């Protein structure tokens, strides 16, 4: 069946089997491999993308559920001139990553959180990102990065 959606500002139509997951559409059909798969059970959040501006775990949605939607992936976060999104820049500057596998999902979840709450507390960030797992950092530098980015947004 046909699924028409916008990914990172460009309209696409794909002929897909109905069982195709949104993350499969993104990785295999659109060829955008920045979105990672870490668990298959919507536990880790590595596959987080924005669906109409809000963070979703793309392994938990069927591609057909995104029909007509506006999807943003990690590849669509930088400005047209290549300037990184403040959250991306803050993850770099605060050493909010090591292996980096969770990072795209974290950036997507964090930017969605900041869109909703531009001045979060440390506690707000932890509660807001609790659905994203990181096995390397122990999370503190990620929290720092999100708080730094919120300052940059203000």
């Amino acid at each position, binding site marked *: 069946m046909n699924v028409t959606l916008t990914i990172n500002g460009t309209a696409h139509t794909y002929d897909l089997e109905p069982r195709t997951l949104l993350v499969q559409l993104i990785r295999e059909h659109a060829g955008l491999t920045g979105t990672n798969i870490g668990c298959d059970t919507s536990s880790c959040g590595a596959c987080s993308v924005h669906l109409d501006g809000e963070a979703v775990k793309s392994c938990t949605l069927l591609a057909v559920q995104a029909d007509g939607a506006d999807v943003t992936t990690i590849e669509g976060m930088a400005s047209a001139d290549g300037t990184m999104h403040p959250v991306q820049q803050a993850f770099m500057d605060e050493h909010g990553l090591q292996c980096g596998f969770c990072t795209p999902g974290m950036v997507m979840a964090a930017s969605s959180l900041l869109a909703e709450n531009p001045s979060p507390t440390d506690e707000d960030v932890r509660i807001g*990102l609790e659905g994203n797992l990181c096995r390397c950092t122990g999370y503190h530098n990620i929290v720092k990065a999100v708080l730094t980015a919120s300052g940059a947004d203000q």
Partner: protein
Amino acid sequence: MTVLDAPSAIRPGTLGDSVLRPDGTAKVQGSFEFCSDLNAEGCVWGATLRSPHPYARIRSIDVSAAWRVPGVLAVITADDVPGQANYGLIVPDQPVFAADVVRYVGEPIAAVAGDDPEVCRRALAAIEVDYDVLEPLIDAEAALDPNTPAIHPDGNVISSQPVIHGDRDATGDVVVEATYEVGMQDQAFLGLEAALAIPDPGGRGLEVYVATQWMHEDRRQMADCLGLDPESVRLVLGGVGGAFGAREDISLQIHTSLLALRLGRPVRMAYDRAESFLGHVHRHPATMWMRHHATADGQLVKVESRMVFDGGAYASTSEAVLLNAVTQAPGPYRCPNAVIEGHAVRTNHLPCGAMRGFGVVQVCFAHESQMDKLADACGVDPWELRLQNAMHTGDTTITGQVVHNVAPVEECLRATAALPLPDEPVGGHPRADGSADVMKTPGGAGRTTDASDVVRGIGWGVSMKNLMYSAGFDDYSTARCRLADGVVTLKFATVEVGQGFVTLAGQIARSVLGVDDVVLGRIDTQVGSAGSTSASRQTWMSGGAVAAACRAVRDRLFLHVAEQHDVDPGQLEIDGTDVRDEASGWRIPVVDASAGVDIDETVEYRHPATEPLDENGQGDCHVGFVFVAHRAVVDVDPELGLVKVVQIATAQDVGRALNPLSITGQIEGGVAQGLGLAVMEEIIQTDGIIRNGNFTDYLLPTFLDMPDVVATLIEQPDPLAPLGAKGVGEPPTISSTPAIVAAIRDALRQVDGVGRPLDRVPVRPADICLPARASASSTTG
């Protein structure tokens, strides 16, 4: 938040500076290629058929129906392995494909290749295997019994190692003993196993992109099983999404290569999370009896122990894990006498091997629990008791080895004690209305805990960990440094798993050679081995190799400059961009100084040789040691058995802090894994069948589980280390676990004056809130 010592003034980008990751931009932009992202023209998919039984005889395998699935391109079994049938890190005892017996749930039996993953799945389902299901061996103690039938031709005992030191008959005024258990922990890296194999035209070799920890060891085992020369197997590091020990063993490397060579076209394989739990080794479960003898005032006299490590179905690194455990059984304390007996055995559980801490995690939980028990029996404060017994440089370990390293155990203890305790009130932050913040209470969002029931406890954990490979292993690392047109290019096979060697390598070149412009070559097998990214060894080993290669290039450049410009090579230095003679003020840009010459040096760095243990477990078996102290503060709901870890304070021996920011990341991440083992993480197996092989049921620490970490670095450059620096990866994980458990015990003792033994990790709610079961613990004296 983390408190770090203020760095002194240093040239940006050099050693001591908190340099950011060179791969950071690609990683935050999603353009970094993890191994699971790789593809090639004409590539097809591979998949693996795995045993559903922990122990069974294979009567027959019928693959004919799999061939009839449309889109299937290859079906292979043990008959299709052209080289050695078995592989393994220490002994080749693990079949590439099981032929006649399966020994664990998840053991590979066959592999298929097809146009897409769904075709592969249908083909796997069509393979008919006729099993004669056998009674699995799941009791490690029973595996030691010579009357128990062997589940493997090599027998059930993988390794036995005693350590007998000093007077074996010595006794103390005070004796404490107990039996401790550690459950099976998963490394749970986020980036799942993946590989891409591209055969050479003609099928005489291949190039394999893989996320691993040890390129050249993978290549050795792959070549043996593929029946190829090692030179015909070229490995390239695919982006690695974490490792923590789980990538030290072969998983899908040989299977992917076999399919690619069979088809003459590229093949990729990728595990999902459920398969990953079956496809890599785990941390050994262990049962450890310990008896500590001390003088009445708490001076250690003797440690006795008998420990059994469950290695699962195949040997992997069990022998080395056991060696670490028995040789460091007393922990970082002076212990004049020891009688230790250790065994690693085969069972029909999932195979176990490397995980961060490698054998020391298990014994550390036991020896630190014992130190608390001893402190209690002697009426001494637990921190004082540790201080009193702390090991120092020049002391002797229980293998008779003199510790020549910097050994700042006392400094770690004192510095940790000086760190501030949390100001957070017991039972969680009060909200504006005076109620507790439920997210800060034990049980969190479950909202089950009444803050007034919460009790706070404090506990200590201290550890030592051997660095590098031990017992006579020829352990080395290779690095190549090339200077051309003013640009330094470094080449090594040192695997970057996220720990940050790619950051450190550039810092070393900028400091040692002095040139700021550093490029890193691709990480592959086109240069000599770097050894494994494990045992906290790469800062020391590959750091030593990169530094030596950079020094060699610098010396050659200075000789060349001296010849060309009639200056004294002994007076030259490089300040980032220019070669200069400090005395005269003469200078020349590196790009001009190196014009027309290509300076290219490859160096192998080796640490001083170690020796195997003798029959009494005596010998200089380890290269060196690193030390750390942890203090945990926990809030416990004693009625519901729930725990919130509030704070971990730690002082870690780092030798020299080469990148403070990077070290902080290792400490915080390591503490998270230590917390996981203390109160959350365990692979549950019933009758050899895994019950929770997914991230819904295997509980990993989240943002909300992570405590505040207050850290300080103990900087005493180690004269034995090439850069003065010790590895930092493993210590944070090792003693954070016993510190947390000690803190829970402390809290529970406040409730009824007795508490709970908590002699097993992870600590489960029932261990806290149900009446104490009959304990093996006893105290006399």
